[in-house]
């Protein structure tokens, strides 16, 4: 059977989106180490990040992650282009607030904000640690690269704190709609299950958004 682009593209967005959602759980859990007092946090966080960098399985996962972001964005753009073409004339008056959530109507704009965040985030950390761009990263007492110090210095800058914290908000909205939509896209249609899914998506979005939003503030005050 010939593939249908309406389904294929959305399935790709959903599969990559869910993989990214899973990643966010792991990423947030690890970053919670940053909430500990500085002395404890530094050692644990640096040890954890060294473990990640030296684990070959994690390298595979990391590439899957970069690929997922790329695929998610590319298909999102294709979907947005077709959707725009399918609706060439807009209504003079349109009260879609009365029939659907704001997030569901603005997934593209929310995604664009997240993309800006991801780029800045990669420049702040990935480029500095992996590519060695910017100031050299020091080593801590245990001989691990001092990633904690990279994080700490970044979040001594209030502008970065504000940027990281504020952009956790669009992420939350994107995830609240995205998580439930992804399951429906992939064919989950069980009625009571869908109601449960809506609640889980809300809780998930709040936890991720609040979690990532709070960490920079806490580190700032360390």
């Amino acid at each position, binding site marked *: *059977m*010939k*593939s*249908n*682009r*309406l*389904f294929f*593209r*959305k399935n790709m967005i959903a599969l990559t989106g869910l993989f990214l959602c899973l990643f966010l759980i792991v990423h947030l859990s690890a970053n919670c180490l940053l909430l500990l007092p500085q002395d404890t946090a530094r050692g644990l966080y640096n040890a954890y990040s060294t473990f990640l960098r030296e684990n070959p399985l994690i390298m595979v996962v990391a590439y899957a992650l970069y690929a997922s972001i790329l695929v998610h964005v590319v298909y999102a753009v294709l*979907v947005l282009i*077709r*959707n725009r*073409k*399918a*609706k*060439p*004339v*807009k*209504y*003079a*008056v*349109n*009260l*879609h607030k*009365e*029939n*659907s*959530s704001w997030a*569901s*109507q603005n*997934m593209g704009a929310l995604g664009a904000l997240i993309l800006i965040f991801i780029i800045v985030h990669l420049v702040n950390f990935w480029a500095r640690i992996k590519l060695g761009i910017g100031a050299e990263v020091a080593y801590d007492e245990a001989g691990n690269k001092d990633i904690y110090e990279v994080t700490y210095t970044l979040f001594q800058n209030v502008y970065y704190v504000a940027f990281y914290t504020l952009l956790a908000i669009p992420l939350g909205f994107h995830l609240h*709609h995205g998580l*439930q*939509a992804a*399951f*429906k*896209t*992939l*064919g*989950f*249609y069980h*009625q009571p299950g*869908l109601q449960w899914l809506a609640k889980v998506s809300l809780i998930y979005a709040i936890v991720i958004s609040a979690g990532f939003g709070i960490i920079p503030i806490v580190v700032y005050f360390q």
Partner: protein
Amino acid sequence: MQLTFRIWRQEQFQDKGAFKEYLVDHLTEDMSFLEALDHLNETLVLKGERVIAFEYDCREGICGQCGIFINGRAHGPHDHVTTCQLHLRSFQDGDTVTVEPWRAKAFPVVQDLIVDRSAFDRIIAQGGYISAKTGTAPEANAILIGKETADKAMDAAACIGCGACVATCKNGSAALFTSAKINHLNTLPQGKLEADQRVRDMTAQMEEEGFGHCSFTGACEVECPEGISIANIAEMNARYWKARLFA
């Protein structure tokens, strides 16, 4: 009561349309929205102007012909109603009411408020039926169908093809309509024989007609006069996977 109608006027598909305002008097709140348009048209006839073109048939909420976008909502301010079931008591005396045709690439404007919904017919033509010898009606109990199955099929079969789902969807997606038609038949034993082929052909036509992707905003199920649930779209997606992987 008195209302100002701000109505989209367009001669034909190729033309550029525009809004025109009409102050309409001597309305009563018991009039249906279509009766108000009839009333306005009578005054236009007396003035020798071309009447406002709009569609209807049954005027009792079952044919799906009366699709109009009213004050920013498909079929007006209420959930789950057709335009013919909307009454002027839903408006305040002196209101301005903006009246637009359905907007979607796949639904070109024919004139004023009338759009061409034959894209839906072509989707139906790709499998929105079962292949059976016609003749005298078969014995009703020849194929036994459980109540739950019959109810589920009937819920989907309730779709009247009005196009409100496409009209309200920001992506102009026909996923709700197509899924209702597919699930109606694929739920029943009579439809199962051609189930995978139906999914393949009807969804292919949906793509062909230029409808957009489904983003699960849920606007469609709110505006749908029959309250067809978007769970139908998720079920269609599951049926698509099955047809794609196993057929």
